[in-house]
């Protein structure tokens, strides 16, 4: 058997050779550590994005001009510039503006993806709120609810059902986008994989395993989004 393997060229040489796989799996701890960083950045980033997105979405759907203009400007800026430059601004420019300020790279990641996806989530929330008939809001206001109260108890609970599938899709994008912090040595899964692959040149197996890692984090959520979409369509 081992003779047979020894005679198959691509198993011994080339980007996917067996020794490369062995080297990767004896250092798999590195990728586990990276995965943990990615999960931390993704979960806290998602929390920030949800908070920002809800606040901005409510502002964008409101009839007060200044909050609406602010939300609009925020969304346009964040949706039309690359996440990478936003991350570089926090990474490079912010410590220059406030000298001596030190931001840990994980925090940069959380702020970066949180603020970026906050813009996308606010659009989802706005569309969800606007899908609920105006009469509902008017009825709530006439019953003595404040605007915020009406949102909190009447509009948002109903909008939730419409908002959930695109929100889940945003979570998938957010997990994938945490990988940009690899470019500023963020210690996440992508960085861990890239650093290991670059040190020994084991690119093939490492990228396959890193890809599998992201896939396993994203695919269940993508499936959930599909399920939720089908459910809302039936209702």
């Amino acid at each position, binding site marked *: 058997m081992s003779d047979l393997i020894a005679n198959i060229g691509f198993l011994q040489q080339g*980007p996917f050779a067996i020794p490369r796989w062995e080297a990767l799996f004896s250092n798999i701890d590195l990728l586990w550590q990276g995965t943990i960083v990615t999960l931390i950045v993704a979960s806290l980033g998602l929390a920030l994005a949800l908070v920002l997105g809800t606040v901005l979405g409510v502002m964008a759907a409101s009839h007060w001009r200044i909050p609406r203009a602010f939300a609009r400007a925020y969304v*346009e*800026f964040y*949706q*039309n*510039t*690359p*996440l*990478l*430059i936003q991350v*570089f*601004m926090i990474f*490079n*420019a912010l410590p*220059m*503006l406030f000298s001596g300020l030190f931001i840990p790279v994980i925090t940069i990641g959380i702020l970066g993806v949180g603020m970026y996806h906050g813009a996308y989530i606010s659009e989802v929330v706005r569309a969800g709120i606007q899908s609920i008939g105006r009469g509902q809001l008017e009825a709530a206001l006439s019953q003595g609810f404040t605007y915020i109260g009406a949102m909190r108890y009447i509009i948002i609970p109903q909008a939730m059902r419409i908002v959930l599938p695109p929100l889940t899709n945003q979570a*998938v994008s957010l997990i*994938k*986008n945490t*990988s*940009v912090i*690899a*470019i500023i040595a963020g210690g996440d899964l*992508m960085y861990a994989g*890239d650093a290991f*692959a670059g040190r020994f040149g084991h*690119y*093939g197996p490492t*990228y396959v395993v*890193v*890809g599998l890692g*992201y*896939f396993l984090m*994203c*695919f269940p959520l*993508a499936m959930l989004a599909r399920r939720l979409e089908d459910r809302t369509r039936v209702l």
Partner: protein
Amino acid sequence: MEAIMNTPVVMMLRDPVLYLGLGRGLMLTLQIAVLSIVLSFGFGTVLGAMRYSGVPGIKHIAASYVETVRNLPTLLLILVSYFVLGLPAMWAATIGLTIYTSAIIAEVIRGGLNSVPTGQWEAARSQGFSFLQSMRYIVLPPAVVKMIPPIVSQFVTVIKDSSFAMAIGAYELMFKGTILAAVYWRPSQIITIYVVISLVYFTVNFIISMVARRLQTKLSVGRGSIGD
């Protein structure tokens, strides 16, 4: 006045090297983006049609491609194109973006085709239209209208994601800016460079987003089919 003209930021902003560098960077960014979109449109149409066809084996190949690629970071696909496929930086960026974007466009195309009710197909076929004729005259016109706005806005995503190519050293706008930030190293200059790059990306993407939005409203007016 003299004092203002001699501040590091103003000196930098008066230096043509800055605009030459950023201009070249923008050209490469646009080149990568346009090539990726064109390639993705071709590849995505094939994939979308494969999945729409419903033919067992063919449908599953397209579906697994789309489902796999959609759940991978674009940065990873660019790195794979560069380090594993061994492409030169500019092509690695283009191919990496194409692998991802074609999956997205495949879904847009399938969604557009699916939005035409099957009754219209059946009606066309029963009136003696051939498969290609029904496609050309009945199904595609309303489907294409649904596909155009999301494809245009996908362009924005591709332009933004092309900045990942700095990880492999392609001299696109983001990387050019980072290099210039090493030449103009003063904090005020570096911050100004970041602001300028953001504004360049913003201007290009904002225009494209506006076009996508216009198309969306324009195309959806007066085009409602019975199925809507």
